[in-house]
């Protein structure tokens, strides 16, 4: 079994790296770690980077997970290969640009590009965002899934994820005590469905709501509160249609033995406890539902 320790970073292709950088710093509140000509890496916490925009196709999206030991990376490659996944060993220069010791890449059953990394760098100096968004760190991703039952089996059997709750068919998966690090949403495309950063307080969520509206950023869901994870949230649209989320107060699941996942309805009430209605296709039963 592949033991995922943490979600590590996302890599997003974009045709407009300047615009994406402005969004990531001025609006999202991340800090530039390194600005190269063809790629920019951003920090959200103690890590060297947790988001990378590179010049390329916006459909080219990757999420990386950290594994604990170098030997686990080799074992994962062997296991994935045995199961029929095409595994790519990361070249040394690629590992260098990712600021990890070693990594492998593959595609999950829905075709999402996944990387497993060993020894991603963290910096001695703290993260200091461009604006006071209160970000405490990159925390989870939503992934598109063409078959959530099959993909849930991949993440929970081939990897170490556990189901924390389901909203309709969508499973919310944890790899540690945090309620979820991966969420799978039924979709007819592959790719990252949303990118979550945690913020320190509910006040930060609300402040950002007003700040981003003033900047003309399109709100797609919230402010609200998830009945599943208890987190207060705000979803908004970023460059190339990517959905970003701030949330605060996500629940921890301390008791692995006694915890039972719950089934929430796939309707606005299943997503928000305050009454907000999502305008995100994957959070709606039928497209265009309000």
């Amino acid at each position: 079994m592949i033991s995922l320790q943490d979600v590590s970073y996302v890599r997003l292709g974009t045709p407009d790296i300047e615009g994406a950088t402005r969004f990531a710093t001025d609006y999202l509140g991340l800090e530039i770690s390194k600005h190269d000509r063809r790629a920019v890496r951003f920090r959200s916490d103690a890590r060297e980077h947790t988001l990378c925009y590179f010049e390329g196709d916006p459909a080219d999206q990757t999420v990386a997970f950290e594994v604990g030991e170098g030997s686990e990376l080799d074992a994962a490659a062997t296991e994935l290969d045995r199961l029929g996944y095409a595994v790519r060993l990361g070249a040394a220069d690629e590992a260098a640009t990712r600021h990890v010791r070693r990594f492998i890449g593959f595609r999950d059953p829905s075709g999402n590009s996944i990387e497993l990394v060993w020894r991603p760098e963290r910096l001695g100096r703290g993260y200091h965002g461009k604006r006071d968004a209160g970000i405490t760190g990159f925390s989870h991703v939503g992934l598109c899934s063409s078959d959530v039952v099959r993909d849930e089996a991949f993440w929970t059997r081939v990897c170490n994820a556990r189901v924390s709750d389901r909203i309709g068919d969508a499973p919310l998966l944890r790899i540690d005590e945090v309620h979820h690090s991966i969420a799978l949403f039924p979709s007819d495309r592959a790719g990252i469905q949303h990118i979550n950063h945690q913020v320190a307080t509910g006040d930060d969520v609300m402040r950002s709501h007003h700040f981003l509206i003033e900047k003309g950023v399109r709100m797609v869901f919230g402010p609200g509160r998830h009945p599943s994870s208890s987190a207060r949230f705000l979803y908004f649209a970023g460059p190339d249609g990517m959905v970003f989320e701030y949330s605060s107060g996500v629940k921890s699941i301390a008791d692995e033995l006694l915890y039972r996942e719950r089934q929430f309805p796939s309707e606005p009430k299943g997503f928000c406890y305050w009454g907000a209605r999502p305008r995100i296709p994957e959070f709606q039963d039928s497209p265009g539902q309000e």
Partner: protein
Amino acid sequence: MIAIDQLRYVRLGVQDLAQAVDFAERILGLQLVERSEQSACFRSDFRDHTLAFFVGDAADRSIGLEIHGHDAFAAAIAELKQHGIDVTAGTDGECAARKVRSFATFRDPCGNPIDLVLRPRHSGWRYFAARDAGVKGLTGVALRAVDVPACEGLWTKLFNGRVSDWVGDASFLRFDQAHHCLAYYPSTVGGILAVEFAVENVDLLMQSAYFLQSSQVKIVHGPGRRPTSNQIFLTFAGPEGTLFSFVTEGDDILDEAGHRPRQFPRMPSSFCAWGSESPLSEFS
């Protein structure tokens, strides 16, 4: 010095009683206690009622403040008269309408009617709301005043009111540990600006925010957080020009001797720390 025990009620004169009753039940979610052709009153907590609507003039909108004990009540009336303030004792019929043993009315320096009440009725029954808005009780009233310093002077000199904070000239007055029970906002007219009800928590306040939107109630300020009291608030339009607020959280002033009123500048960020803005001149 006259000691105010607590805020007891707000009485609002309205033209359209039916609409006001509908608002109180369906939107505020309060419990209807008594309804007649001419008036209706609502509970929000342990008190018999805290909100009353009556068919009448908007200028007759008053608040009721409780004085504890007959002697203190009599002394209060004497003291106000001594300072040249007109005080009118309530008739038996008026006392019955307010469900108090006695009351006396005077006007603050800006003409806002104030009832001082003795032995207002308590309810033995559990408060049971019309909708689950999580209302915990009437907690404050915001008043408009042409001359805020004069009104502030009345409450701090003749009464036991203390200034908790100022935003520009707006003055937040407390009579106990709660940050404020009365707030005066500078305006060109007098009258009740907003009636504030405490709700249990931020979840209920935000649920109400979405509920009000879907009910097409005009939200005039918030949801937001007040830098002064640290309360989370939501202010919305009620019947015939009166605003209502739901508030939750907030800091009490526990160090009575040590607290110094703070002066915040008169700008939107002094009224809301989240960045919400209001079209109302009182909050901007």
